[in-house]
């Protein structure tokens, strides 16, 4: 109990030093609530712009730090749930505001990561995806599944109609080859959403494989839910 109180105290002091949030205010909040909520839902502290930016940076740092710890342990990275995949791509794409990047994780039959590749990158509204290139890498590494991910520079984490159409195109290409499209992670700011978690991953082909280039686009859709609460295992 005492250790917990000391921990909370150190956490709160660290948080206020790094973000500029008033100590009294965070202390008051932590009396009745979980102090980690402050990082996950910063608006509860009514931060000013600078404080909000610092909280965003801190979240991004923690995500990157956690990913690096996995790399350093040299363990296999297994993307076996939408939460793990979301955290993984959040570390790679989080906070990217000036450009769009489309990435693909190629997995073996145990969902262990073989390789992650940036398949497209461009300024906002300029990035395009070449499905043929993704297919080339998938065949080369003999993967059994793939996870798609890209960022929305505007910060919205909801999948747009274009994102869903792009996912369907990939299912149309990979499903006949018995390569599963497990998820499509959309990262916006310091948050993410999983299309698998939201039941938006198509289970079967809709039309013939189409290898034409796909333009990445972010359509702003009203955000309605926080996906990070629910875990869906593949």
């Amino acid at each position, binding site marked *: 109990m005492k250790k917990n109180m000391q*921990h*909370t105290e*150190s*956490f709160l*002091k*660290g*948080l206020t*030093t*790094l973000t500029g949030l008033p100590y009294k205010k965070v202390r008051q909040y932590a009396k009745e609530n979980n102090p*980690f909520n402050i*990082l996950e839902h910063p608006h509860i502290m009514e931060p000013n712009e600078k404080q909000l930016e*610092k909280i965003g*940076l*801190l979240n*991004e*740092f*923690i995500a*990157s*730090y*956690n*990913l*690096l*710890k996995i*790399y*350093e342990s*040299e363990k296999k990275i297994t993307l076996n749930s939408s939460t793990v995949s979301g955290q993984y791509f959040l*570390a790679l794409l989080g*906070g990217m505001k000036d450009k769009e990047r489309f990435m693909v994780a190629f997995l073996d039959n145990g969902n262990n990561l073989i*390789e*992650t*590749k*940036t398949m497209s990158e461009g300024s906002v509204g300029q990035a395009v995806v070449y499905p043929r290139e993704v297919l080339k890498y998938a065949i080369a590494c003999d993967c059994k599944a793939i996870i798609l991910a890209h960022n929305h520079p505007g910060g919205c984490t909801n999948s747009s109609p274009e994102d869903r159409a792009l996912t369907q195109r990939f299912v149309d290409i990979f499903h006949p080859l018995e390569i599963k499209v497990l998820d499509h992670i959309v990262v916006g700011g310091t948050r993410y959403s999983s299309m698998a978690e939201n039941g938006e991953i198509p289970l079967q082909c809709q039309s013939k494989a189409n290898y034409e280039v796909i333009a990445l686009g972010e359509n702003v859709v009203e955000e309605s839910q926080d996906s990070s609460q629910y875990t869906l295992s593949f």
Partner: protein
Amino acid sequence: MNLEKSRNAGYKKCAALLSLLVGLDSVEEEKIYRCFQNMGVDNFFLYLESLELDLSHEAYEKLKSLKAVIEIFGEERGQA
């Protein structure tokens, strides 16, 4: 992206974020990036007190705060 490349890209990103969070100049950011490469991020924070980083007192205090936050947040989330 192989593991080595991913790790290096991660170190670069972490050093850049740290620089913005703590308020470092480009020389200090580069120094920390090199530290990450040489000893890893985990060891960097583990041995933070004994590293000779030649940073301002304020930056150093912020690094110690960051260490506390990631340790406690990691423990809570079962990642430490």
